[in-house]
């Protein structure tokens, strides 16, 4: 009886063992792929990658093949670079004022007139104009940008726009000879006048060198100083003042001063203009906004990145910059790092 029980139990155990093995065993896997199968898949993947690359190049990424191969590559579209340059250059010039202060112009001379039988000096005049301030505004036009091998050539039309100024006109008239002194005497008049500047167009030509700044692309300006000549334009008020200066004199004197021809003299001395030099340092280097970092902070650990530039390529579609990085751990800024808590 006991033997039968053991035999039955043994049978049951064997059945349970087979059942458990069948239910709980790891699923039977098919044979792993052969090396040839994996190579075939890799070739298929690589062919698709090549096709993708061709599609990208065909869509306009012409310079991808010429880009410097490096650990990190940055490609900045020339369209974006042009947009940055255009806006920076026009932005700067749109906020530029030329201000001339305390300028003095001087003219003196003698006036001769026929007195009875011969010409005699009837007086000396001294005309001084003190320009306290005259200001002109620059208005940039749309720049023309041409990308070269490692430069961007820039031509910027600039319009010297309206301005305004204040000046003091001082006239001294010293009558000579008895008759002149009798009819006119001496005149010493000072009047405040206003004016503007004569609008004029200029063209600024120069370039930005595209250079590798170690961790980014920088555009360095190469422009000559720009010589601008400002011509002061007396206002209607100024001419009226000059007319008034003459007309307010006695008749004899008015005739003498008409001989001076104040308006012509004034126009002559102001018409020579004033030179202003716009220094080339008005242009600043422009650092393009994507560059390689020199360090990283990761979980409190500072990693130093040693950047070795690998090349700069200026293509029609992109400015390519490549750099290789060597990573080294610098310091742990906040003392020894605490051990990470165990994963629960």
């Amino acid at each position, binding site marked *: 009886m006991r033997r039968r029980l053991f035999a039955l139990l043994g049978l049951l155990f064997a059945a349970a063992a087979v059942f458990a093995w069948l239910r709980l065993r790891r699923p039977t896997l098919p044979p792993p792929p052969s090396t040839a199968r994996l190579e075939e898949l890799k070739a298929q*993947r690589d062919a*698709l990658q090549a*096709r993708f690359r061709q*599609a990208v190049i065909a*869509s306009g990424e012409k310079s991808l093949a010429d880009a410097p191969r490096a650990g*990190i590559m940055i*490609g900045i579209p020339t369209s974006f670079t042009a947009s940055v340059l255009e806006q920076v250059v026009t932005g700067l010039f749109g906020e530029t004022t030329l201000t001339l202060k305390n300028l003095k112009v001087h003219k003196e001379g003698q006036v001769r007139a026929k007195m009875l039988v011969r010409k005699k000096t009837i007086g000396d005049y001294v005309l001084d104009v003190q320009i306290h301030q005259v200001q002109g505004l620059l208005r940039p036009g749309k720049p023309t940008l041409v990308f070269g091998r490692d430069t961007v050539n820039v031509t910027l039309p600039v319009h010297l726009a309206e301005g305004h100024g204040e000046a003091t006109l001082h006239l001294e008239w010293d009558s000579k000879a008895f008759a002149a002194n009798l009819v006119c005497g001496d005149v010493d008049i000072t009047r405040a006048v206003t004016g503007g500047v004569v609008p004029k167009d200029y063209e600024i030509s120069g370039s930005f060198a595209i250079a590798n700044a170690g961790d980014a692309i920088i555009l360095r300006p190469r422009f000559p100083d720009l010589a601008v000549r400002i011509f002061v334009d007396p206002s209607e008020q100024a001419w009226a003042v000059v007319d008034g200066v003459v007309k307010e004199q006695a008749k004899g004197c008015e005739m003498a001063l008409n001989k001076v021809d104040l308006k012509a003299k004034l126009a002559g001395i102001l018409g020579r203009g004033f030179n202003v030099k*716009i220094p080339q340092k008005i242009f*600043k280097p422009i650092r393009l906004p994507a560059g390689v970092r020199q360090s990283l902070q990761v979980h409190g650990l500072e990693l130093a990145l040693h950047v070795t530039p690998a090349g700069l390529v200026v293509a029609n579609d992109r400015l390519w910059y490549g750099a290789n990085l060597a990573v080294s751990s610098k310091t742990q800024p906040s003392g020894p790092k605490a051990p990470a808590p165990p994963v629960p």
Partner: protein
Amino acid sequence: MRLPAFAVGALVLLPACQHREPPEAARARATEAFLGTQIADLQKLVSKAESGQLSSQDRIAIGLSEETAKALIGASLPPEQVIGGRIRLTFESVQPIFRGNNAALLFQATAHGVRVPSATARLELGGGLTNFRIEKGTLTSTVHLSHFKVLDTSLGEMAGDVLEALVRDNLAALGERIPALEIPVHLEQSIAIAGLDAGVVVTKPGVLPLEMTLAEVLPVGERLWVLLEVKAGPWQKAAAAEKSP
């Protein structure tokens, strides 16, 4: 009483009486699956590019090589992790794989028993880079662990299964311990240009604001390409000009 206990124990242990698949076979299987995914993803990408739906020309392109990513992630691997109070897990190395429109990461790790340090196992953990984003001018992505494999173990099949279960249960938490990958580029949010005060000529300073947004991530040809949509302007004048010496 001893016989039934033995019988039950034997029943429980029975399923483990199968050999773990050799690491080479497991790796070949995983490689086949990964290549299949790459091919499927590339086919979609190629048709997108060929139909002109992939725009790249006016975007900033940043390309990070597998080698550089390996150096960056490798230098920032987390220290030893204790899992469930029983296993010490150390990340030994990482291999980024930027191919077939997949940004995958393959970590090699070793595990030691907390109580029995001589008991060791070698693991391979796989995952990828996800959630690419720009944060304060930094291009970042999160490391996500999705699977793992115990390659070989001195623990025996049983303990190997226990280790697998422990790692499986803690895989997400382990992934969170791996620092995000910061792509080492600085992305400026504006270009500031100083003005000039040279007496006669005065130019006010200004700022050109920039707006950068992530457009595409393309892990192809052993390189992780990130395309950024970028807009510049309009120019804004700032307060004061620098005084020229």
